[in-house]
């Protein structure tokens, strides 16, 4: 592995999170397609998303989405703003900071029901 700096790691993370988001999209197409087979099948399948393991995977999805979105803005700025390249490293740290900042509250909202706490609406599924 080449010992690159923030630019290389942001590129690698952008690729990995992009693939992760794509993978979720495929799963999501399958789960919404199930409604075509009737409400019972759909409801039975969708319960999986309330299990603890899938909630942890959902957290990975949210982290991926947040990083990919903000790093995408960083890349756009590098491409279209002539001074952008000068701030690429600073922008990388801003992307990481904003990602982590927005990620923390979602951890609470998604994981709380596993521990029996129900923030507004997050225990909507009576199956739990």
């Amino acid at each position, binding site marked *: 592995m080449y010992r690159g700096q923030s*630019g290389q790691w942001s*590129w690698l993370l952008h690729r990995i999170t992009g693939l992760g988001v794509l993978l979720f999209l495929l799963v999501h197409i399958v789960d919404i397609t199930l409604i075509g087979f009737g409400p019972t099948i759909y409801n039975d399948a969708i319960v999986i998303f309330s299990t603890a393991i899938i909630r942890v995977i959902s957290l990975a999805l949210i982290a991926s989405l947040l990083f990919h979105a903000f790093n995408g803005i960083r890349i756009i700025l*590098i491409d279209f703003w002539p001074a952008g*390249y000068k701030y*690429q490293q600073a922008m990388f740290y801003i992307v990481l900071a904003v990602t982590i900042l927005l990620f923390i509250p979602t951890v609470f909202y998604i994981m709380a029901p596993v521990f029996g706490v129900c923030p507004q609406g997050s225990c909507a599924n009576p199956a739990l």
Partner: protein
Amino acid sequence: MAGDSSKRRVQIKVKRFQPDQNAEPYWQTFSLDVEGTDRLLDALNQIKWTQDGSLTYRRSCAHGVCGSDAMRVNGRNRLACKLLMADLGARISVEPMLGFPVVRDLVVDMDPFFNKYEKVKPYLINDEPAPHTERRQSPEERARYDETTKCILCGACTGSCPSVWANAEWVGPASIVNAHRFIFDSRDRGAAERLNILSDRNGVWRCRTIFNCSEACPRGIHVTEAIEEVKRAIMYGGE
């Protein structure tokens, strides 16, 4: 001896490959005494001259101008002649650059690199009748492409680029830097031709702004900036 007090012992781990003897590359560690003011190239010379004459690497000017001795030092592309041993620690790893076919030990095949370099027409194109004296240029016009005149074609940027590792057909950062040098030269008339070559699928667009090239350049060229300027020249037109 008094002079020996400034010396210290270092371990240099070299990734070696002798195609007539080895099927696969292997690591060999050399121990030697160096001074802080020695450069890595001096240390390699010491190994070659006193320990193992078969160690193979390129060197010419030894002053950071010819661009012969680009190699991967402690994981990053560097010129061996521009690295002081004082800055390198006691254990140093030296490998040939990634993205180039290895010919022998630290020597890589630069032919594909120079073929891609020639692809962007890195020379003045101007069919207008030559003036009686020189082709005049203002200091501002000269400054426009000053950055990219510094390239010594060592290949450190190209060997550090993941897009190059993934696709040997891509022109790579060094070629774009040398295209930039003429695209933004007010005396040159070949910009449209070069921008056309670089808007190809193996042109500038394979740059993913990873910045390894800018960090690796021993001449301090902002390589990614140059590539971005060429991208914008293709998008918006103009030189």
